[in-house]
């Protein structure tokens, strides 16, 4: 290329020289160290006082399999309840009515502020407060009969989850452009229809990633329901180790199952996210 100016001498042409790639010694040493430590830890685990035979034997016994099914059933149902509640509460918080707003804020505060285990125990032991539940004159039932471990776990986990989900939902609703609500109103939609058909599907994009995290958290939180005799996988593992004293081995069995479930959920979440990104591909806001 002609630059129209004479160039100074004394600067050699380097184009022919090969460039030696700089070895990132530091990085590779760090990586090697980490791998080494991992290998050591692995070896120690294999050789330690943990009897892997027990882990293998109990990994697929019926009680454990039944437990993991129960865990999943509970997590799915509680998440459903949590999403429904979270949605209602999020809408309440955004409503102009101060009472609804206050109740919604109070709900979030109370249930996020107290340990889940306490909530589970309170639901399970509701009969201490309400021996009988019902609509006076119409229908009533003894609370202990109504409040099975299943129902208590569902209420405890679901209502607690609702408090967290309401915050996620609120952020999601706020993320949708206000113009969308006006456009829905302009074609004659009421509040509810606009919410369900226009606002929510768009909010899902923002809501799904944190909701995925919440669901993974909930799968693990289900283990707390073992204190109220809900037969989830940790409960099953405990029952086995109370009998045979193989505490760590059985906990590893439960841990492996949780790990499997979480590993399956992550790609599922991706799929759902792609589904709700419909039309947003190149929105380029």
């Amino acid at each position, binding site marked *: 290329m002609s630059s129209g100016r004479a160039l100074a001498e004394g600067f050699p042409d380097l184009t022919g020289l090969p460039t030696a790639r700089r070895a990132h010694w530091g990085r590779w040493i760090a990586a090697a160290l980490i791998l080494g430590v991992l290998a050591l830890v692995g070896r120690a685990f294999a050789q330690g*006082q943990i009897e892997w035979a027990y882990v293998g034997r109990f990994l697929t016994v019926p009680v454990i399999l039944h437990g993991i099914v129960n865990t999943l059933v509970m997590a799915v149902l509680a998440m459903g309840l949590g999403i429904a509640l979270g949605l209602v509460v999020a809408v309440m918080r955004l409503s102009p009515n101060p009472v609804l707003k206050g109740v919604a804020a109070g709900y979030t505060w109370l249930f996020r502020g107290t340990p889940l285990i306490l909530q589970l125990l309170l639901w399970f*032991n509701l*009969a*201490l407060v309400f*021996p009988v539940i019902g609509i006076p004159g119409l229908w009533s039932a*003894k*609370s*202990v009969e109504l409040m099975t471990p299943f129902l208590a776990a569902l209420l405890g986990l679901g209502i607690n989850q609702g408090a967290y989900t309401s915050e996620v939902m609120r952020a999601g609703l706020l993320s949708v452009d206000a113009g969308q609500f006006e456009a829905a109103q302009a074609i004659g939609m009421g509040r509810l229809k606009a919410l369900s058909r226009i606002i929510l599907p768009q909010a899902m994009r923002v809501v799904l990633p944190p909701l995925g995290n919440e669901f993974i958290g909930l799968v693990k939180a289900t283990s707390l329901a073992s*204190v109220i*005799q809900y037969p989830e996988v940790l409960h099953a593992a*405990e*029952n086995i*180790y*109370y*009998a*045979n*004293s193989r*505490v*760590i081995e059985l906990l590893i069995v439960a841990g492996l199952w949780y790990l499997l479930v979480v590993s399956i959920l992550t790609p599922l979440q991706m799929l759902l996210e792609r589904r709700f990104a419909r039309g947003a591909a190149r929105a380029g806001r």
Partner: protein
Amino acid sequence: QEAPKAALPPEIARSGTIKVAIVPNYPPMEFKDPATGQLTGFDVDLGDALGKTLGVKLAWQETSFDQMMPALSTGRVDMILSGMTDLATRHETATFVDYLRSGPQFFVRKARAGELKDMTSLCGKKAGASRRTSFPREIAAWSEQNCKDNPVVFVGTEGSADARTQLKQGRIDAAVQGNETLPYVMGLEPDTYLALGTPIALQYTGIAIPVKETGLQQAMAGALDALIADGTYKALLEKWKLTENGVDKAVINGGK
């Protein structure tokens, strides 16, 4: 008098302390005084007496039930003295020096005394007990023998306090606890509970010591025998209302 002390493993003899796991959730065997937070109970008194006999101090290590056996395996503690039932299934990890006889016993709410008069009236009813114990199996065995095709429905609870909470709500009809604990519990909430019949099985409660620590096992057994001989043991039984449950002599691995 010198014999049990001589059996102590050298390491313990040198340090002068024995580390003992205890789960203070089983009054009157062991619990924390709600007022002071102090560890107390029959096991605590017995342990201290054993220690005195052996000329060592007991270092109590509070732990959780799930954590007791691992603590023994890892050497975190030298032994468990925590109202632990001597079971054959546990002999793989521990050898037991038994110091009490006890038995799981049904109890119900006094309010339902008219309806639940004797043990057989529990057939077809719900009975709860801590799932951490051997009681589930014993209830099943008893039900098998006495109820035939109308068996007792077992409900596993998180512990005996939980079992009582459920009994109070009427979630279960009867609860089962070791009979050594019943007098104390009934004293806490007078006029609430009623013991039903006799214990449904007989078990030993023992000090769990790692299988290979034979020296410590001998020392403990010897010390216990000494306490039985000099009357200290009897006095402790009386203090904690456990006279029904005493043994005549230390038993090794008496559990089935």
